[in-house]
C-alpha cells in the first residue's frame, strides 16, 4: 500500500513532463508554420539572385581581364609622348648649339670688321686726300664701321633663344601628364587587385594566375599624384619664401 502511494506521485510527475514536452513541440510546430514561408521566399530569392550573381561575377572577370590591357595602353601613350618630346628637345638642343655658333661667328666677325676698319684708316692716310679712290675708300670705311649686323643679329638670336625656352617650358607638360597617367595606372592596378580578390572569393578558385599584377607595365613608376601643369609662379614663390626663411634661420 505504501509502495502504491509512492509510485502515484512519480507517475503524475512523468506525465506532466510529457505534457510539457508536447507543449514545446506544439510551439515548435507553430513557429515552423510561420518560418516555412519565409524560408520558401528565401529559396526563391536565391534562385533569382544566383544567375544575377553569376552575371556580375562574369562581368567582373571580363573587366579584370581588360584592365591590364588598358594600363598597358596608357603606358604606351606615355612612352610615345616621351619619345616625341625627346625628339623635339633634341631639335631644340641643336637649335641652341647652332645659335651659340652663330653668336660666336658674329663676335669673330665683329673683331675682323674692327681690323678691316683699322686697315682702311691706315690706307686712307697713306694714299692721301687727293687720291682718285678717296671717295670709294671713305664709303667702304663708313659701311664697315656703321654695320649693325652684330647688334641686330644678337637681338634676333636672343629672341629665338627665348622662344626655345618657352618651347622647353611648354613641353614639360609631358612629364606632368606622365605622372598623372602613372597615378591612373596605379589606381587601375589597385581596382584590378581588389576585383581579382572578389572574384576569387566568389569562385573559390585561383584566377590570379591569369591576371598577374605584373601585367601592368605602368607599375613601378614613381609619381606625384598631385602633379599639375600650371605656368603660375605661385608654387615657386612659396618654395622661394621657405628657402629664404631657412637661410635666415641658419645664418
Amino acid at each position: 500500500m505504501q509502495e502504491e502511494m509512492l509510485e502515484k506521485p512519480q507517475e503524475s510527475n512523468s506525465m506532466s513532463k510529457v505534457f510539457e514536452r508536447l507543449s514545446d513541440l506544439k510551439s515548435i510546430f507553430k513557429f515552423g508554420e510561420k518560418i516555412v514561408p519565409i524560408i520558401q521566399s528565401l529559396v526563391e530569392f536565391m534562385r533569382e539572385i544566383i544567375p544575377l550573381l553569376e552575371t556580375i561575377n562574369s562581368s567582373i572577370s571580363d573587366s579584370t581581364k581588360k584592365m591590364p590591357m588598358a594600363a598597358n595602353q596608357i603606358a604606351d601613350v606615355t612612352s610615345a609622348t616621351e619619345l616625341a618630346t625627346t625628339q623635339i628637345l633634341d631639335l631644340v638642343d641643336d637649335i641652341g648649339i647652332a645659335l651659340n655658333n652663330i653668336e660666336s661667328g658674329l663676335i669673330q666677325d665683329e673683331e675682323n670688321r674692327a681690323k678691316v676698319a683699322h686697315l682702311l684708316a691706315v690706307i686712307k692716310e697713306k694714299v692721301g686726300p687727293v687720291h682718285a679712290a678717296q671717295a670709294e675708300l671713305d664709303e667702304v670705311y663708313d659701311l664697315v664701321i656703321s654695320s649693325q649686323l652684330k647688334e641686330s643679329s644678337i637681338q634676333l638670336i636672343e629672341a629665338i633663344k627665348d622662344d626655345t625656352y618657352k618651347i622647353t617650358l611648354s613641353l614639360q607638360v609631358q612629364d606632368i601628364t606622365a605622372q598623372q597617367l602613372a597615378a591612373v595606372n596605379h589606381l587601375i592596378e589597385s581596382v584590378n587587385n581588389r576585383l581579382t580578390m572578389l572574384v576569387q572569393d566568389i569562385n573559390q578558385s585561383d584566377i590570379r594566375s591569369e591576371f598577374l599584377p605584373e601585367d601592368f607595365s605602368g607599375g613601378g613608376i614613381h609619381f606625384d599624384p598631385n602633379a599639375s601643369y600650371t605656368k603660375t609662379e605661385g608654387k615657386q614663390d612659396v618654395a622661394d619664401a621657405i628657402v629664404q626663411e631657412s637661410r635666415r634661420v641658419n645664418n
Partner: protein
Amino acid sequence: MKKVILIADDSPTIRKFVSVALTMQGYEVVSACDGMEAMEKLPQAQFDLVITDLNMPNLDGFELIKSIREDERYKEIPIIILSSLAGSAEIEKGLKSGANSYLVKPFDPKRVQYEVSKYLN
C-alpha cells in the same frame, strides 16, 4: 674648363630639359635615372653641382641628398632639388636633408640657369 653638373631624375624628358637649358650656358651635364645611379656616377667625375628630383625609384632624392652630405668627398657640393612636390612639408624636408635650393616643376629654364649660376659663377 667646363663646370660639370649631375642631374638625377627618373624622367628622361626632365633630364633632357635640364641638359638643354644648361648646355646652352656652357655647362657639361651628366644624367642619372635615380639616386642609386647618381651615387655610382659621383666618383666618376669632379661634379660642381647636383640637381635632383625627389620621387625616384631605388634611392629617392631625400636619401640621395643625405648620402651626399654624409660623404666627406661630396658634402660641399651645392644641391638643387627639382620636383613637382610643392608642399611646404616636402620643401622643408628637402632643405633639412641638406639641399641648397628648391625649384618646382614645371620649371622656367632661365630660373634653373640663374640658380646654377648663383653657385658656379
